[in-house]
């Protein structure tokens, strides 16, 4: 291994210094971490997954199974990154992984000696079954999980930033090689909006592996020049399209610098009605003994390192192949001064290739195959045998084995959309099926073409088609000599008979040939089962290197063709995607949207403790001094009963119901009648679901002849509006009604307490607020400090109370005006916790009681169900189950002791064993300052007939039991004298 003094596409004028395993690693701009490691002579760069075998760089791309490294340190740490895809940057810190204490002396290597025990299915066979049940396995699993995996992630918050971007184009071209460039050119010339996505740092694809300054370079420069002149083409490099999804949507990750203020990665969601998949092909490994030894590499990768990075991977190389493509590697290596022997499994090699090889001084062994690599830390020789077994194996000294068993087109994205590709026997690979209507069309190497001209023509045609019939794509660019391809002259041998030593099919997961054989012996016949049992092709490999070889072995054993054995399909992502990129900016404060009431700023300024109600932020309580929530809510609730308080209820759902049929509409959605409600009045109503269960409750005011103002509970506002819209657009198209959310239009606050009328009267001196002029359940328009308001006289607390509605932009000024004017009345702001206390004392039902299981009868609201008209749920509410006499009914609980009851606690008869589901459950619970006791609301079987009975409240979660007496749930002012006064 050495860096050549000339050649390559690296910038020798810009050296960089990186750090690998604590030591300086020199490189140049244009290098990858892998090329720098090779140039610096690092033969071992990692340890294998299971057996901890020494591994060196194997490939030059996204398929790399060995050179998995951890990048950066501390919170920036990123494990399992392929060194072959990491751009060399000054200051980059990388470390090997899966080894301790180091990759050169790894304790885990003992696994290699124990390998006979670690065959396919080892964990399941060993740890499941010795004892009954799963306890033993679960115990063992902890240790297995600790021992498995590769790199380690950190549990620190990721300091990097990421972005999510949505974009649209007419044509997405995936891949910037010869086919992709041709496709982008054709589509771009026709005027289509094109995104050209290339995962590498520069365009060119396989061309970059050709010697610098050749015919292909000239072609590439010409095409790039023209592409850059077309403003409708957006070229994105370092951008990997990892997923193809329904509705012509593609997922892509773009790697960025991550410099100050800029994201490190950007996740693109691309909507493209047409896409061209020019994703190329990945070379397949040859399977022979010790084919994972450092110094065994893919032939194409060896050529890439030579011609792109000016790294000569070996001085004495063996090129093991079954196809023409590896000859390009052999010839280039020979030109660079290496001694080369080609070991070709074929007996017939095209004459032109033979002659080129001979001219370059290359020895060609036809009809031979490598059966084993030899060497302790790296390759020192290879055992080569004739395939006809007519002769003894040869041991050839070498420091590099460049292997090629053919190529596998990257059909992953296509398969994600269209399932199983088809097998092409003459090229021994899977290619996309011809689907003329498909929106994602393959082009180039992915279709296993025979020559470069076909790649360019094919790409150009797909690009032109994708752009549509309009415009002129011009002429197809002239082709160049792309060297020999694998697909034209292929020998089927990928594994010689009589291999010696561990022969790996899947290097990343340490799956050996013998594992496939064992799975076959154990009866695995389905390719999907084989994959999961042996783990071949799983994880980040996603079948890139291992699929076809594993299938070929399986097919051989089953005496079938590969096409008959079938293949697994592929799922996103094609390459690993950082979770941070998928999350983008939607984390922390942006993990979900937050809803603030128009008075939110005042609450925060006053030091309110906030609580979340769905997506709303609400004032929970306003602590004084060191008060906790318990002390604060008792103080606030008691104060409201004695004086006056103001609570923000802007979160209530508010819906405008408008139109000549509005009353009819309300009659259908509410259980009670609405035609008799006069303008200026308010009525409480209950809604049912179709099945007769209570859906929601609220009050509705009649503003005009055809206009109503409805309120719903906070939690159900959106659901009810959506239900109304659905009914009006489908079931009740005959009704002339429009419903519109007013939740954002109005702020709302409830003023409650015996002094509330007096305070309001000072704020609205021109309005008569006397009980005669404004009785309960009526409203009046007014102004407060010049702000328009509507005063609804209604009570949720049992106190004399008013709900004050004002346009949102007036919300805080109105609130402030009330608080200022209320000072002489000792007004306080109170939060949701004390609001809940007041409503429980009054016995109003809320969310815990309207839990989707209760009926009007259960809630004691049956009197609100009209018998004179149909309404939603009016039929099914009479189902026998819902009318059963032993249903749980709403009651009050007067709780003994100083602890109160927990919501959800079960209720048992006094003296009964607390077993099973009990006779009911607690819904809402609080300490009642008005009663000086803990109270609760609960559903108890036949509860109304059992008032006065002593019961047990059992909290099985916290193992607590208390006693309570069943009473009416209207704990406070049951006659309503205060609220109606």
């Amino acid at each position, binding site marked *: 291994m050495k860096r050549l003094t000339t050649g390559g596409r690296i910038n020798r004028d810009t050296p960089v210094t990186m750090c690998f395993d604590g030591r300086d690693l020199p490189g140049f701009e244009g290098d990858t971490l892998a090329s720098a490691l090779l140039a610096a002579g690092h033969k071992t760069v990692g340890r294998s997954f299971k057996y901890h075998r020494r591994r060196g760089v194997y490939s030059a791309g996204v398929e790399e199974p060995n050179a998995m490294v951890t990048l950066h340190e501390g919170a920036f740490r990123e494990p399992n990154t392929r060194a072959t895809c990491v751009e060399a940057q000054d200051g980059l810190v990388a470390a090997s992984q899966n080894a301790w204490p180091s990759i050169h002396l790894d304790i885990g290597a003992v696994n290699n000696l124990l390998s006979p025990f670690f065959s396919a299915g080892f964990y399941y066979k060993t740890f499941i079954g010795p004892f009954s049940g799963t306890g033993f396995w679960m115990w063992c699993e902890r240790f297995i999980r600790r021992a498995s995996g590769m790199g380690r992630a950190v549990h620190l918050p990721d300091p990097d930033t990421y972005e999510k*971007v949505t974009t649209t184009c007419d044509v997405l071209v995936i891949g910037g090689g010869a086919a992709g460039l041709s496709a982008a050119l054709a589509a771009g010339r026709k005027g289509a909006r094109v995104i050209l996505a290339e995962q590498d740092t520069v365009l060119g694809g396989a061309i970059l592996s050709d010697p610098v300054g050749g015919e292909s370079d000239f072609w590439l420069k010409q095409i790039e020049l023209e592409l850059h002149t077309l403003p409708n083409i957006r070229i994105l490099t370092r951008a990997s399209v990892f997923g193809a999804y329904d509705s012509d949507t593609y997922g892509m990750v773009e790697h960025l610098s991550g410099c100050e*203020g800029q994201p490190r990665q950007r996740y693109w969601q691309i909507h493209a009605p047409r896409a061209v998949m020019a994703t190329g092909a990945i070379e397949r490994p040859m399977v022979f003994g010790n084919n994972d030894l450092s110094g065994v590499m893919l032939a194409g990768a060896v050529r890439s390192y030579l011609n792109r990075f000016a790294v000569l991977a070996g001085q004495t190389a063996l090129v093991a192949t079954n196809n023409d493509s590896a000859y390009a590697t052999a010839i280039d290596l020979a030109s660079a001064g290496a001694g080369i022997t080609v070991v070709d499994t074929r007996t017939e090699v095209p004459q032109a290739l033979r002659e080129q090889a001979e001219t370059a001084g290359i020895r060609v062994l036809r009809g031979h195959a490598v059966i084993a690599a030899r060497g302790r830390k790296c390759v020192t020789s290879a055992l080569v045998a004739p395939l006809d077994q007519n002769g003894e194996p040869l041991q050839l000294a070498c420091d590099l084995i460049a292997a090629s068993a053919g190529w596998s087109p990257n059909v992953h994205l296509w398969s994600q959309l269209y399932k199983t590709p088809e097998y092409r026997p003459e090229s021994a690979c899977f290619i996309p099926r011809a689907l003329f209507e498909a929106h994602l069309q393959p082009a180039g190497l992915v279709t296993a073409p025979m020559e470069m001209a076909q790649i360019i023509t094919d790409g150009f045609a797909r690009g032109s088609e994708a752009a549509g019939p309009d415009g002129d794509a011009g002429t197809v660019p002239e082709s160049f000599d792309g060297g020999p391809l694998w697909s034209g002259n292929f020998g089927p041998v990928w594994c010689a008979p009589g291999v010696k030593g561990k022969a790996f099919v899947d290097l990343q997961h340490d799956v050996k040939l013998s594992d496939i054989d064992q799975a076959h012996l154990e009866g695995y016949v389905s390719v999907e089962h084989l994959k999961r049992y042996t783990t071949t092709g799983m994880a980040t490999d996603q079948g890139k290197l291992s699929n076809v070889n594993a299938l070929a072995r399986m097919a051989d054993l089953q005496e079938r063709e590969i096409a008959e054995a079938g293949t697994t399909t592929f799922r996103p992502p094609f390459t690993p995607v950082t979770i941070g990129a998928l999350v983008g900016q939607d984390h922390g404060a942006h993990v979900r*949207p937050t809803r603030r009431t128009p008075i939110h700023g005042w609450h925060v300024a006053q030091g309110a403790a906030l609580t979340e109600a769905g997506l709303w932020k609400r004032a929970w309580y306003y602590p004084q001094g060191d008060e906790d929530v318990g002390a604060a809510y008792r103080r606030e609730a008691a104060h409201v009963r004695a004086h006056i308080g103001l609570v923000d209820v802007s979160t209530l759902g508010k819906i*405008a119901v408008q139109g000549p049929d509005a009353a009819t509409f309300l009659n259908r959605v509410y259980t009670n009648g609405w035609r008799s409600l006069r303008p200026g009045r308010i009525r409480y109503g209950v809604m049912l679901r179709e099945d007769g269960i209570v859906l929601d409750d609220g009050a509705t005011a009649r503003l005009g002849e055809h206009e109503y103002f409805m309120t719903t509970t906070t939690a159900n506002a959106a659901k009810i509006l959506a239900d109304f819209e659905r009914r009006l657009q489908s079931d009740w198209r005959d009704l002339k009604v*429009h419903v519109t959310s007013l939740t954002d*239009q109005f702020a709302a606050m409830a003023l409650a307490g015996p002094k509330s009328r007096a305070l309001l009267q000072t704020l609205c001196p021109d309005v008569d607020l006397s009980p005669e002029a404004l009785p309960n359940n009526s409203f009046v328009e007014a102004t407060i400090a*010049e702000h328009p308001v509507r005063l609804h006289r209604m009570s949720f607390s049992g106190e004399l109370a008013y709900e004050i509605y004002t346009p949102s*932009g*007036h919300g*805080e000024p109105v609130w402030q005006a009330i608080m200022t004017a209320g000072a002489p009345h000792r007004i306080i702001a109170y939060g949701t916790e004390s609001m809940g206390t007041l409503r429980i004392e009054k016995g109003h039902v809320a969310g815990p009681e309207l839990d989707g299981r209760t009926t009007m009868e259960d809630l004691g609201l049956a009197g609100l169900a009209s018998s004179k008209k149909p309404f939603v749920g009016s039929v099914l509410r009479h189902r026998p189950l819902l009318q059963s006499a032993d249903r749980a009914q709403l009651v009050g609980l007067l709780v003994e002791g100083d602890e109160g009851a927990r919501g959800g606690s079960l209720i048992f008869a006094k003296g009964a064993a607390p077993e099973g589901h009990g006779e009911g459950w607690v819904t809402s619970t609080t300490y009642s300052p008005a009663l000086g006791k803990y109270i609760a609301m609960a559903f108890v079987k036949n509860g109304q007939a059992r008032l006065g009975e002593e019961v047990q409240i059992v909290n099985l979660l916290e193992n607590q039991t208390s006693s309570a007496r069943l009473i009416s749930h209207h704990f406070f002012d049951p006659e309503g004298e205060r609220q109606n006064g």
Partner: protein
Amino acid sequence: MAEYHSALYEALIAGSYGTPARTADRLTLAEERLGALLQIAGWEGFDDKLTELAEQLGLTLPPDYQTVAIAQGRRLYRTAPGRVLIQSEGPLPVPEAPDLVTLDLSHSKTAIVLRGAHAADVLSRTAPMDFGLSQFPVGRFAQTGMHEVAVLIERTARDRFRILAPYTWARSVWDRLRTAAIPFGYDIPPGEAGAETTRKTAL
């Protein structure tokens, strides 16, 4: 005179934000007072009635649900079959027309203005739409989701968008836009003196 309290009151802190090094092509993020916003809705024959009504206001009923009609400081958006929104910088007379219902929604929306060469780039980081000029030209509007909130986005100029966000969600949308704008750098213009930014203004 009664004051209007902005949903963005606490967030409208004038200054320069985002990537410090980026000085060119900075964005402006501001609130614009909406004025009057009226919803008019109807049933059968709605288009004919509304055409007549729009003409009285100097507007032409757009043919679709994505083109804004603009005239005399008023804008008309067809938001759904049988529904339009009319926004006016000044007072808007509530039309009296049989079989139509009107609803004042002036306080239900907060208008956020995003201006600058990278305005479309910021929007593409917050809403799943194509904001390219050819697909989303000046005078086009769309009702879509931004940070999971239902918003109406209008392109008022080549490099200027106006986002109508629900009042109670506006702060969340604003914060999300600010995050998306960080890599480009952005300015919030001074409060009441700024042309587009209002914390508290007299109605």
